[in-house]
């Protein structure tokens, strides 16, 4: 397992699309350093030959009948939009 000081906050915050202030970076680095140091104990466990568990009761290939059902109306779907126009979500210009 990597060392806790490998946590490169700027890189990770960029991956998470999260702007952090200098003060948050400093505080989170210390707090998450503690947490990462704590989870190092998982290295003690012999996991060779052990399958990972993603769900306690795995269910696979759940199919629904291919029957159209009523969904949200356009009005409802746009009801919580921060900005909308002509049945669309409005965002700043993406392509020049």
């Amino acid at each position: 397992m990597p060392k806790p000081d490998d946590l490169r906050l700027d890189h990770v915050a960029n991956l998470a699309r999260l702007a952090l202030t200098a003060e948050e970076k400093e505080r989170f680095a210390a707090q998450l350093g503690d947490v990462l140091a704590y989870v190092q104990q998982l290295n003690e466990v012999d996991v060779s030959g052990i399958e990972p568990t993603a769900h306690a009761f795995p269910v696979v290939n759940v199919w629904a009948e291919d029957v159209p059902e009523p969904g949200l109306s356009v009005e409802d779907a746009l009801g919580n939009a921060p900005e909308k126009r002509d049945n669309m979500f409005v965002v700043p210009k993406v392509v020049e």
Partner: protein
Amino acid sequence: MSEELCYSTISELSGRLGRGELSAVELMRAVIARTKEVDGRVGAFNSFDEGDALAQALASDGRRAKARAAGADGRGRHLEGIPVGIKDVISVAGQPLTASSRMLENFVSPYDATVIRKLKEAGATCWGRLNLDEFAMGSSTENSAFRATSNPWDLERVPGGSSGGSAAAVAAGEAVAALGSDTGGSIRQPAALCNVVGLKPTYGRVSRYGLIAFASSLDQIGAFARSVEDAALVLGAIAGHDCRDSTSVRKDVPDYVGGMAALAQSGRRWRLGIPKEYFGGGLDPEVGAAVQAAIDEYRGLGCEVREVSLPHTKYAIGTYYIIATAECSSNLARYDGVRYGSRSKDATDALDIYFKSRAEGFGPEVKRRIILGTYVLSSGYYDAYYLRAQKVRTLIRRDFLEAFTQVDAILTPTSPTPAFRKGEKSADPLAMYLSDIYTIGVNLAGLPGISIPCGFTRGGLPIGLQAIGQPFKETELLAIAGAYEGRTDWRTRRPRL
């Protein structure tokens, strides 16, 4: 009068409603009056819609009158007219859904969660929006962006979390029962800290459709109630397969209350396991003594009590905080400020909307977990953290299943300490995480668990006993919890407010 009603159980109230001694509107009015009287001090609610609640109650009275006119006795409709508080992370059509986050401060649900649809079909009144740690991340409800809920037993202390509003509302008589969600103990721990019953069903027993996702492989909706029987009634109403949640399980929903009663009648001698790893360092001596006394009570009932071992217990918190934060970072990626949720006013381009809206919308604990989860899933670290944690999860689950070859249920403290003071752990995330030590293994293994009142500290703070059951054996778990509850009167005690 009003307070008596608010502290009655569903079984008592449904009898009175059925006999026509009480109307749903009268009951709802009493609960509204109680809420207005005490919620300024307790702070369990983010909001409530009095008119909507009274309209639901009026409709319930109408259904009852119509059924009576048609000659039906209304038996079996125990939730008809009962006000059930709703954690503000479960969608109720037309009502706010904030997750106690600035991100969703103005969000209104366009549809009902499946559990809400089922509660409404059972005739219950969906009541209020109950406070929580932001996005259900926390153990004290202090992470709410709006207010810190107080523990009704000591207003200087936390109610636990993340479903702290649900637990406090039931404890304070502001709801007859409530729904919460439990990802690592978020129903059981606050139930223990507030002297109410808290039930987390087996993963997959209850649909998660319409529940704001935190960690999808761990989240499960469950009930807060005044008695084990009431918890069974709510579970019976909300359980069942749902084609809208692909992880919900196709299993029939049994008659939990009837099944509990039949098991109690049968005089079955339960085999109960005490995991030695759960009684070590960090356990408050008064909590330990109360739980030991409860175990002795089970011995007195003729149960066979034996020590069991869950050898990977010490790795549960580390495993949980890797898996839960990984899933959280993925689930919360949807809050991008584009389609719903708050959008930063300062954003200049599309990418900027993501960075700034998320920075402004999320509180510190949510940000910490997104960062941690993104890190453990990132290239170069995935195998070392996430994959390893998933493998340790397998071992933790095996520990429980191995123990269940010897015992019917496992008894533990719910929380290592009684309610702590506000602010005591909020600057130290790791200390806060450790308060979930006895509850998170249950989520990792997908098992049902229940917390029931088992005593008080000398200072008057509630203590909870956790019973952990075998997968999908909620009836047995409820019967075991009910056997102890029937021998004690802890659950009937009320806080002075």
